[in-house]
């Protein structure tokens, strides 16, 4: 099977490319990038060809593409890939507007290709185990969830809303919202948020606390802040405190680490857990190979999470909760 990558603008392209290279029978057939220097560099790194723009890549005899361009370009790239009959694994957030996201979903459906949203955290073993424990009723019925997805300010195009669609709230809401939806099979009904630019000198939201009400009566909060500075021992976290009628689960997905104290690097967490990006890419390739009608994580899953992030901005602006669905 042949797979291409559209853009290395998002750094996750790097680990997705690595994952592709490790799957037997999969060939990384080419890289398209509107930044030629970047495209050529990674074509070199991964022993493949730089083809120029994405239109050229889509002309190749490939089965699927990974879209890791800037968020605002997802629609253009995914719709083009769908029309060319290529299955798509699209980086999160799926799109910067609901309209764009819907257009991508429709284009993939009309052209009979899979659209998978890249929510790799669903492949983290501790996350899978948490879902399993909830399913087995170990903590009774879920009542509330306190989530965090902290990170560092990534800079670059991530802090240019024209390309990213928004800052920390947009970048870091979607992962944990997806996990909450997945764990409970329930949709977010209402969103409140406090969000602001409080840390970085670039004027974009870098701090945010969302409060969520789910259709199943569960309430939740989510801290999506880029509040990890360069001396913090790690890039960030994905955590969930899940309170149930019969117990609690404390999930800290990346707390599989050893501590490094280095005179050069300072104090660092060295992660030794499983590579979830590998799980994500293997799942996508498996779905394409077996001719599945629907991806494990769909475009709709991606869009539902985007809706929550967009509602959070509206709520933060209005200082009032926003209903997504009644």
């Amino acid at each position: 099977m042949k797979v291409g990558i559209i853009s290395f603008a998002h750094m996750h392209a790097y680990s997705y490319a690595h994952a592709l290279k490790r799957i037997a029978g999969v060939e990384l057939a080419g890289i398209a990038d509107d930044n030629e220097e970047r495209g050529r560099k990674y074509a070199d790194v991964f022993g493949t060809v730089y083809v120029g723009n994405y239109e050229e890549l889509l002309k190749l005899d490939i089965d699927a593409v990974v879209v890791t361009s800037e968020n605002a370009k997802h629609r253009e790239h995914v719709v083009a890939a769908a029309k060319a009959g290529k299955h798509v694994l699209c980086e999160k957030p799926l799109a910067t507007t609901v309209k764009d996201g819907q257009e991508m979903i429709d284009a993939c459906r009309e052209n009979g290709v899979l659209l998978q949203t890249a929510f790799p955290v669903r492949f983290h073993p501790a996350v899978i185990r948490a879902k399993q424990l909830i399913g087995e009723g170990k903590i009774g019925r879920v009542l509330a969830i306190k989530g965090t997805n902290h990170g560092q300010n990534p800079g670059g195009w991530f802090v240019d809303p024209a390309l990213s669609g928004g800052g920390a709230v947009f970048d870091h809401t979607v992962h944990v919202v997806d996990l909450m939806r997945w764990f409970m099979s329930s949709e977010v009904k209402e969103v409140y948020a406090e969000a602001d630019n409080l840390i970085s000198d670039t004027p974009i939201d870098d701090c945010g606390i969302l409060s969520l009400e789910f259709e199943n009566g569960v309430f939740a909060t989510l801290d999506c802040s880029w509040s990890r500075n360069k001396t913090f021992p790690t890039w960030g976290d994905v955590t969930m405190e899940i309170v149930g009628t019969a117990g609690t689960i404390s999930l800290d997905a990346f707390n599989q680490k050893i501590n490094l104290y280095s005179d050069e690097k300072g104090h660092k967490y060295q992660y030794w857990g499983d590579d979830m990006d590998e799980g994500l890419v293997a799942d996508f390739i498996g779905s394409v190979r077996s001719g599945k009608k629907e991806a494990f994580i769909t475009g709709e899953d991606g869009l539902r999470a985007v809706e929550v992030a967009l509602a959070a901005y509206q709520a933060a602006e209005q200082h009032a909760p926003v209903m997504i669905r009644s």
Partner: protein
Amino acid sequence: MFATYDEAMQSLEQVDIVDICLPTYLHKTYVMKAADDGKHVICEKPIARHLDDAKEMIEYCKARNVRLFIGQVLRFFPEYREAKRQLDQGAIGTPAIVRTTRASAFPQASNHWYADFEKSGGVILDMIVHDFDFLRWCFGEVERVYAKGMLGRGFYALDYALVTLRFASGVIAHVEGSWAHDSFRMKFEIAGKTGILDYDSARDQPLVAVSRGPKSEFGGVAVPESPLKRNPYFVELQHFLSCIEQNAEPLVTAGDAYEALRIALAAIDSIRTGQPVTLR
């Protein structure tokens, strides 16, 4: 030991101060009794169950020329004091986003008064009123409160609340209060423009004792301790006593306790209405 307040007052030769550790809903009655008797008063937090009660207590003590101190003890905990000191020294630059946790099992007490929301105010008024006071001490006045909690979602033998505070300074704080966990834990994380402060009582422990044996009494249960030469409650009482002796302003005033109560009640209001509550 005396069975009643009145019995104690009649039997003891000299009482200068009355320390009230009654359930919240009884604070007002006994603060006013002690004030009537001309005693200075130290009263457990929260100051009262309702704002007008708190106001009345403050004014009542003032009118009778007795001091009123409220045990918002977090300001006397060295870990919290150190955080405040670091903040004041600019160790993390301008503060931005803050997370706090205060968690324990559901408290057991006489007549299950904690379980009666009208008497205790639940986890928000009894537990995280501590954090509200600490946060206000560090970051100034709160502008807006939004909260979600178990209130009105059916009765379980637990309480849980997640509160977002927006300060006039711009700081955003997330406050978790739990009576749904199996042991006590408190945490804070304060991220600023140039640094981060964090503390976790479950991680940062100087001493843990575990007795082998059957799981009765303390057998098989880990008992963590953070021993200090002078524990925070002792330091607090000593401070209040010296304020009386020297007629000085305390580190935390009854007015501060009133403001912490106001934040807590706003959080409860927000849970009930589903809307943010603006305080300023």
